[in-house]
């Protein structure tokens, strides 16, 4: 019951920015927000002390879809709320959450190097996990990644 209360509170908090709300499974709610509304939505959750950011993940639905997704997972007890931000594949950019959650830097660096989604306004844009000799503009977790792109 507590989980349901948490999810309901989150849904109410995020209502002003929600473009679409999906329930992928019990205990989870995915809320689609526009890239411009991301910071405000995260602020709403943080200001209400609703849980914490557990991870940022990326999603590449394939080239024909023409989009990439950045997923911001917030958890409160067993309840998980995911902010889904859909960005065009040609120019993927999301705003940084560094002003709301200072520890977000590592997640954003990982998102940038693995998916090539530009995080605007994040203070550190260095690579985090990829090797030093990794070529620019090659993103290993995208669907169209091929080993041949790495050269010898």
């Amino acid at each position, binding site marked *: 019951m507590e989980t349901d209360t948490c999810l309901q509170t989150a849904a109410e908090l995020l209502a002003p920015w929600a473009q679409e709300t999906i329930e992928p499974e019990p205990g989870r709610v995915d809320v689609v927000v526009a890239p411009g509304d991301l910071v405000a939505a995260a602020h709403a959750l943080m200001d209400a002390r609703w849980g914490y950011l557990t991870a940022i993940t990326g999603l590449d639905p394939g080239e024909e879809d023409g989009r990439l997704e950045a997923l911001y997972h917030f958890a409160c007890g067993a309840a998980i709320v995911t902010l889904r931000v859909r960005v065009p594949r040609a120019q993927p950019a999301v705003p940084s959450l560094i002003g709301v959650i200072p520890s977000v830097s590592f997640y954003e660096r990982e998102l940038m190097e693995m998916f090539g989604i530009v995080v605007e306004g994040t203070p550190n844009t260095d690579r985090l996990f990829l090797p030093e*000799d990794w070529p620019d503009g090659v993103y290993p977790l995208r669907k169209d990644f091929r*080993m041949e792109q*790495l050269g010898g």
Partner: protein
Amino acid sequence: MTLKLDQSWQAALDKLKTWARLNSPWAIHFNSGSCNGCDIEILATLTPRYDVERLGIKLQGSPRHADVLICTGPVTRQARDRLVRIYEQMPEPKFVIAVGSCALSGGAFRGCYNILGGIDQVIPVDVYVPGCPPRPEAIIDGVVKLLAKLRGDNPSDTPVVFDPDSAGEAAILAGEDPVEDLAHAQREEEAIA
């Protein structure tokens, strides 16, 4: 400095060098991307439960003091140059033991964007010890096989692979010598386990 000796003296010297080498192979351990499973087994091999130091096998801190490079894990793109540098710092003659499935072929990580494959993609390997992770007995057997090869019991240049069914086969080698001691110790451990 090159010392010019006539054949019989050279043969005697070579024999002495081989004897010394067999008695105390010094090793260095390098993890080029392992999950640490194999590293823990190598530590178990070295620490008192199996205690190979009593047989002269000693872990060295510097590759410049080591005869044997014990490698674990697949080779990541980031680790390739480091692995080659460590290998090149070792004095000749040098030997490489690849420990674990990942060191052999890349294992679970094979085909991943940051993985080059097994150790033999980067440096030559003398002994392959499969397992995920291999037991300390298997690692000891790998060392035994390497020493047997060094002594010339395995004249072919093809690498040797640990075979669990014939574990301790090196024990059939006659006489008391380090290889026999090691194989004996290994049999003892197997009896305990």
